[in-house]
């Protein structure tokens, strides 16, 4: 049951994250291939003629290599998104400024096409308007310089060719990433729902099985008793018959009242002892109240020890209770006073108290500790 639960949580995360991760890796690869396959030849081809500072151009190449080299990882982008965006835009502006005015937006202006791919990498998991804003921050300075620091050699058709086509291609990639992300999210949600349904089915069939087993166990003890009462073989006035009836009633009550969904080792352990005591002819009323808390195994054993000892030898009616409060857990047992071999509980976090009144014995063990 536990493995199913963790698996389905992990499954949802995997589907959502995997789309994201693979797309980012693909985008990083594209950014590097575009930079070195298409843009670097332009830079080298115009190395001596078109740049006011080759060093700045080289620095821009370094930045646009560095960003895809680290930003293919989701964790890096989540953490360093804005510093990296600032770095890329700074490189964009520096590279644009140091192109000689006449060559801006033309072939030597290689960074004009290259920067967008790094921006995709940093913004593909966000909304389209953010990416459009970043593209604008990249292109507007180049266009402004071309207009006011011109004239440029390139024609209007050339600008459309180099800028508009590249930019629309990049926008399409981000749109595609957004669409894929939505698909991934809904796949993950459907997967989670399917897993939940499967888990619920597994749980309820397990509960059903448990219940059937317990009904079967009842049939072995309750049915003969009822049959005996019906046939007159057993006398309801007889003390032992009445005790058997009380015990069967208690077992049935527990069966009916059992929600069976909250696993609590302390309650489970005591329930097992109650079962044993009932087989010895003791009628136990067991009641647990408050929150179930995680208790160290060793403490749990010592906490239940007095109750277990009393249950093992008690006769007649026994009341067994557990209370879980935020700061303490108490196990209490009340039984007819008698000779019990109750062990001393020696544990610094557990206090026990024993009260005897009117032929009844009450033992309480309380644990005040950190779980």
């Amino acid at each position, binding site marked *: 049951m536990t493995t199913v639960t963790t698996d389905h949580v992990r499954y949802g995360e995997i589907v959502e994250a995997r789309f994201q991760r693979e797309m980012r890796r693909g985008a990083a690869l594209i950014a590097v291939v575009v930079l070195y396959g298409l843009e670097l030849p332009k830079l080298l081809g115009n190395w001596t003629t078109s740049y006011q500072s080759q060093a700045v151009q080289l620095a821009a190449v370094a930045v646009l290599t560095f960003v895809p080299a680290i930003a293919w990882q989701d964790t890096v982008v989540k953490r360093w998104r804005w510093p990296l965006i600032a770095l890329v835009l700074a490189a964009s502006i520096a590279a644009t400024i140091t192109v000689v005015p006449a060559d801006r937006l033309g072939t030597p202006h290689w960074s004009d096409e290259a920067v967008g791919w790094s921006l995709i990498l940093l913004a593909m998991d966000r909304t389209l308007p953010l990416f459009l804003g970043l593209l604008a921050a990249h292109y507007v300075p180049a266009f402004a310089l071309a207009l006011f620091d011109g004239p440029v050699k390139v024609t209007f058709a050339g600008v459309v060719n180099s800028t508009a086509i590249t930019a629309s291609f990049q926008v399409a990639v981000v749109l595609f990433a957004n669409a894929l992300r939505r698909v991934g999210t809904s796949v993950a949600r459907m997967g989670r729902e399917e897993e939940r349904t499967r888990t619920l089915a597994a749980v309820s069939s397990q509960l059903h099985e448990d219940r059937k087993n317990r009904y079967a166990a009842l049939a072995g003890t309750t049915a003969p008793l009822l049959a005996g009462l019906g046939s007159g073989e057993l006398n309801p006035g007889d003390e032992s018959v009445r005790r058997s009836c009380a015990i069967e009633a208690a077992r049935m*009550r527990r069966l*009916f*009242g059992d*929600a069976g969904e909250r696993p609590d080792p302390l309650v489970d352990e005591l329930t097992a002892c109650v079962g044993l005591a009932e087989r010895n002819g003791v009628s136990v*009323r067991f*009641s647990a*109240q*408050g*929150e179930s808390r995680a208790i160290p195994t060793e403490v749990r054993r010592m906490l239940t020890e007095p109750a277990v000892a009393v249950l093992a030898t008690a006769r007649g009616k026994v*009341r067994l*209770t557990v*209370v*879980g*409060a*935020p700061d303490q857990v*108490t196990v*209490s047992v*009340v039984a007819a006073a008698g000779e019990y071999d109750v062990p001393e509980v020696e544990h610094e976090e557990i206090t026990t*108290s024993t*009260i005897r*009144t*009117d032929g*009844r014995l*009450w033992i*309480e063990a309380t644990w005040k500790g950190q779980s």
Partner: protein
Amino acid sequence: MTSVVVVDDHPAVIAGVRAWCSAAEPPIEVVDSGSNVGVAWLDPGDRADVVVFDLQLDLSGPAYGDLKRLVDAGRQVVVYTMREDKETALTCLDIGAFTYLTKAEGEDHMVAAIQAAASNTPYTPPALSGALGTDTRANRPNLTQRQVDVLLEWFHCESKEMVAQKLNLTVSTVNGYLDRVRVKYANVGREAPTKAALVARAIQDGIISVDEL
């Protein structure tokens, strides 16, 4: 003579309650009984001082709606149920049930609960006490640590003598603590005629002062 109507879907339970009532001192008259809440609304059940009400009449879950209608009509309802969980007990108290008795406690507490209900005096059986003592909801009344101790010890041992001995109190002081807690709960609960009666009676009896509310 105190009269009671029993709403329970199991004939054995009704027979048991009848037996306890006839053996009570003074005797309690069971005017009617049935497996449907209708018996509490129809003659002669509508004249009964107290309604003993099984919360789980069918498979559709606790009959909180029926309980609410009875309370709103000013009936004193003793909820008598199989359910031992805290949430159900506290919900019944919020709705305005007079008290909450589990079926396991019936033999020891039913008669006293009916008599207390008829006279508007608080009555807190051990299971309800455990629920109140472990109540962690935000809207619960402020209880002192001593009050919580008394509630929980009473839940554990079901004997006021033992609680008194354990906490170095007298039995009447233990009762005083339990009653005060019950009245505090009535005071924060939903507006209902029964609640007002309980609080008013508690103030008259000196269980609690107006300042303590």
